[in-house]
């Protein structure tokens, strides 16, 4: 086997050499006999190897050629290499497998003009703000970025190394799909990547940025990664395209409607955020990367911070309206407490009744989860539970403390929710908060009603520090509903309601039982959280040994 390989590579060397002399696109297959006939060729070829390396490198750098590069630009997209260059620190990219070529010999693919050094993907490692990252960037100019066995092998190689050294992997997806000419080898390639996605999950952060088409089985790699970002107008994600949809379900749908950035960030929840264009996306990805630890063995990064950790936020004292029925924007609170009002929101357009995202507190990355009273009163439903659960699990996997702001009237009632399985999906959020062992700080800003109170990182789910604002109301339900049940049929409902409000619509019932650790002035929230995070930085907590937990999927 090994001998055979040597011969093969030898003959390929020769091919290349002859191509120097003849028309490079019309080379006949060389044989070993030619070499023995002219012993001097060895030293000649030695000289030429340098040149051939240069030629191959040049060819690799120009991908599918000038014409295709221009076509890519005309579509408003950058090339695979331009993207890598923008994403990484200047001169930090170290490329792997530039000389890898596909191995397909069917359908004329073996022809030399069908071979591109590096094939349809650029892989390697580099730095983002000085921190290590592995990157693959699919090259749409080479066979439409389709995935060959070699292409998959290149991706697997960097993923394996990323796991060994503990560094995130960023995939820049721009691929037409499987390399059909390669058949099952292409499918095997996908599976190899999927397996690594799964193995790497929870070990190193994995981020996908969809910058072009990504269809068919290919979509499952981004789906397995921690974050999927998209570029507006130029990227699509779907299992089958509009033509197949038409033939199967007779639905008329455009690419954009079926799998564009808007669909996936607002309707399906497949993608976590969308950006205006390639440059915008890549620059934002650099910013996003700064929030993440390199692996599950590293702590969340701490950056230099100019915002005083003991800053009071007077605006928070008036943010919660006096009337309990009136909405306010949870983002006002989050911006108020975060370093420099900076908040990288995840899924800002999906399940807007819960807000999740990253911020820093005194330079330290934190994950923030908050009910959004502005949307559907901040109730928990299927989508918001799943959105929250996935985010909490990411934070827990990667040592990112979780800060939870609670203003939740309960779970959303109704047949749609019950039939959709709100019980199962709501349990995910409960599960995620309960199993998390990272520092957990909770602030009840107003309502914390019913089971939703328990779910939202309550003291009972091992919350480390739980605060209530003076406006907090922790109870089984709101006054009106409660009175209707407790005093059913009684005449003086208004009086009963007043009594209930007096007893329960305040933080005391929870505070006297120690279910909240303190009642704090809202303006002090930032100061308190920063102090707690410092204390909790050395928190050690472990769950019982298990092969893995069985989250209600």
């Amino acid at each position: 086997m090994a001998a055979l390989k040597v011969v093969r590579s030898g003959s390929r060397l020769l091919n290349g050499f002859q191509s120097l002399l003849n028309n490079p696109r019309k080379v006949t297959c060389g044989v070993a006999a030619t070499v023995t006939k002219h012993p001097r060729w060895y030293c000649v070829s030695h000289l030429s190897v340098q040149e051939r390396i240069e030629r191959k490198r040049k060819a690799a750098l120009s991908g599918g050629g000038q014409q295709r590069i221009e076509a890519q630009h005309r579509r408003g997209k950058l090339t695979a290499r331009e993207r890598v260059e923008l994403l990484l620190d200047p001169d930090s990219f170290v490329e792997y497998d530039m000389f890898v070529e596909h191995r397909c010999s069917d359908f004329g693919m073996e022809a030399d003009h069908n071979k591109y050094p590096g094939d349809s993907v650029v892989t390697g490692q580099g730095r983002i703000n000085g921190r290590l990252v592995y990157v693959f960037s699919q090259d749409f100019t080479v066979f439409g970025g389709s995935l060959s066995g070699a292409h998959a092998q290149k991706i697997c190689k960097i993923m394996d190394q990323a796991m060994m050294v503990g560094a995130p992997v960023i995939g820049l997806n721009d691929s037409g799909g499987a390399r059909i000419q390669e058949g099952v080898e292409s499918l095997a390639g996908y599976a190899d990547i999927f397996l690594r996605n799964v193995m790497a999950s929870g070990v190193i952060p994995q981020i996908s940025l969809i910058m072009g088409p990504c269809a068919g089985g290919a979509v499952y790699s981004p789906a397995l990664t921690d974050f999927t970002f998209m570029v507006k107008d130029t990227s699509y994600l779907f299992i089958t395209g509009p033509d197949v949809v038409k033939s199967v379900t007779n639905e008329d749908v455009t690419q954009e409607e079926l799998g564009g950035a808007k669909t996936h960030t607002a309707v399906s929840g497949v993608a976590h955020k969308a950006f205006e264009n390639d440059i915008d996306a890549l620059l934002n990805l650099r910013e996003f990367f700064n929030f993440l630890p390199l692996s599950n063995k590293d702590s969340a990064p701490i950056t230099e911070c100019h915002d005083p950790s003991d800053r009071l936020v007077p605006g928070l004292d008036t943010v919660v309206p006096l009337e309990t029925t009136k909405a306010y924007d949870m983002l006002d609170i989050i911006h108020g407490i975060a370093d420099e009002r900076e908040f990288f929101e995840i899924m800002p357009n999906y399940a807007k009744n819960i807000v999740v995202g990253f911020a820093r507190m005194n330079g330290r990355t934190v994950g923030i989860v908050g009910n959004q009273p502005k949307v559907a009163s901040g109730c928990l439903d299927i989508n918001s539970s799943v959105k929250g659960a996935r985010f909490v699990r990411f934070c827990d996997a990667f040592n990112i403390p979780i800060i939870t702001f609670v203003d939740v009237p309960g779970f959303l009632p109704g047949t749609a929710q019950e039939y959709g399985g709100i019980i199962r999906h709501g349990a995910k959020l409960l599960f995620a908060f309960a199993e998390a062992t990272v520092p957990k700080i909770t602030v009840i800003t107003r309502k914390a009603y019913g089971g939703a109170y328990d779910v939202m990182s309550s003291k009972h789910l091992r919350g480390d520090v739980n605060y209530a604002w003076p406006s907090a109301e922790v109870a089984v339900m709101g006054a009106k509903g409660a009175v209707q049940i407790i005093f059913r049929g009684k005449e003086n409902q208004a009086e009963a309601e007043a009594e209930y409000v007096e007893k329960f619509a305040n933080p005391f019932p929870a505070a006297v039982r120690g279910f909240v650790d303190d009642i704090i002035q809202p303006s002090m929230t930032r100061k308190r959280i920063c102090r707690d995070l410092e204390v909790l930085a050395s928190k050690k907590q472990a769950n019982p040994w298990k092969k893995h937990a069985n989250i209600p999927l």
Partner: protein
Amino acid sequence: MASHRVTPALQRVLFTWQHVAWKSRCCAVASHAKYSTVYDPAEKVHVKMADEAVCVGPAPTNKSYLNMDAILEAARQTGAQAVHPGYGFLSENKEFARRLAAHGVTFIGPDTHAIQAMGDKIESKLIAKKAKVNTIPGFDGVVKDAEEAVRIAGEIGYPVMIKASAGGGGKGMRIAWNDEETREGFRFSSQEAASSFGDDRLLIEKFIDNPRHIEIQVLADKHGNALWLNERECSIQRRNQKVVEEAPSTFLDPETRCAMGEQAVSLAKAVQYSSAGTVEFLVDSKKNFYFLEMNTRLQVEHPITECITGLDLVQQMIRVAKGYPLQHRQADIPINGWAIESRVYAEDPYKSFGLPSIGRLSQYQEPVNIPAVRVDSGIQEGSDISIYYDPMISKLVTYGSTRAEALQRMEEALDNYVIRGVTHNIPLLREIITHPRFVSGDISTKFLQEVYPEGFKGHQLSDSERWELLATAVALFVAAQLRSQRFLGNLRVSSSQQEQRRWELSVELEKGVHAVTVSRSGSTYAVDLDGKRVDVSSEWNLASALLPVTVNGTQRTVQCLSRSASGEIDLQYLGTSYKLRVLSKLAAALNKHMPEKVPEDTSSILRSPMPGSVVAVSVKAGDTVAEGQEICVIEAMKMQNSMTAAKTAKVKSVHCNAGDTVGEGDLLVELE
């Protein structure tokens, strides 16, 4: 301060105004009186400073601050012996004063008959004439309908001014140059008068073109003594509402000042005025002055008079209300230095010099650390600016021994004023106070229209200012980039990677793209910009809203309004905010491939330019409208705005009804 003279009878004073919360508090404390206040649930700032506070109900104002019953009840609850009504709301309401008197509560202000006499524009002018005060020619008449308005206008001769009899300031005031405009003015003014004052009587008089608005502050007691406390020039106005005021005026000579002061005092005496009041005059270019009206209350702009005279007007009002005689004689009233007041509004100055904007003050920081700066406001960080009140954020007053010094301080104060979350008029204020015409004192009530005939467009950068701004943005970008590479206690950052010393960047401002190189040494950034060398140095605190920078030796305070990962930087520089984008050389080169996103065609859709309520919709689907034709009327902050069609077209659909509340940017009407 005559605190020891306050008798126990005036221990509690109820202040029903917001903007001078702090001021009222100081006064009340100085007078050993308890300070009580009223509030509505939406805003609570001045409440904090009060000894006690009573809720008078939620906005809109006719249910809260204009609700006499609620305020009378508040007075009863707090046991107040006196009520200071502030300005606006109930300050000039004779009915309120009468009802207070009936409850045995002192109204801190003039007697009801003076309010009545001066509150009525027609009667006030008759009295003024009798008191030998110069009045505007051609003045007369209560107006019953549009045709009568046209007839009166014809008798007086155009141009004429139409306004509400009951209203103060410029509210409900319109100028007509012909019969058609008179009819329109009548319609608008009477509507506005009705909604603001509950009294739709109107007044038509000769309009004096290009005048200055100069007013005399008077102070009178209940013993027949009256003083004039010099003038305030309030000529800088938009839509007849004051924007920038100063005291004294650059225009008056001592003789004119004295003549105006004496006429003002004689008018005050003629109505047995007691308390502080203001006599407004129009002054033409030949220093002829005409009586306009008398405001029988404290004016918004009273602080500048306090600055130059050293008198505390609120305290004087309380003294007078208590029945004490004035402490000063006319000869004791000085003009010390110069004071300027800018009215900081939650308004978009790019839309007709200021259309109301609303929002939550996400960040708010007053420039009170600068010496000789006074800020009277009723809000704080976190306050909501709602559509229910006047959009005034604060009165910013600066004082100097000379006008130049006061102006210099105003410039500095405006640069250091942090307001985020609502659009504000600081760009306009800063442009006004630095405009050569204003600086030289060459102003009139037409100032804004004359200086900005095309509307206000923000500060126009000179070449050197442009370089300064570009260099500042680039230096800020580099500082932020460098910081994002600094991780604390992270051992996994490459040790071989050196901190970048030289940066090749590209910066974009107003479609102009410039290639720049930056090199940093310590806190100084040498920026090479189109062959010009600009040195920027700053100890950047990237968390601070205010960035003090030294650019080529000039010290400035720049505000960073926002900074995005994709290189967008919004800077407030010389008052105006500029959108810049800084990219690496590589990103800038690749930027040309990025697709242009097509913005929505706005000519066929009409969106609300501000939050407010729809008063009237004049079209329905299927109607054909001409360009400029009125489509609907939006009322916001007690002001009616006519929305017109941007092109001649058929109405496709109407998305609002009279009575609806709309937000900024809400779709009102679609055209085909």
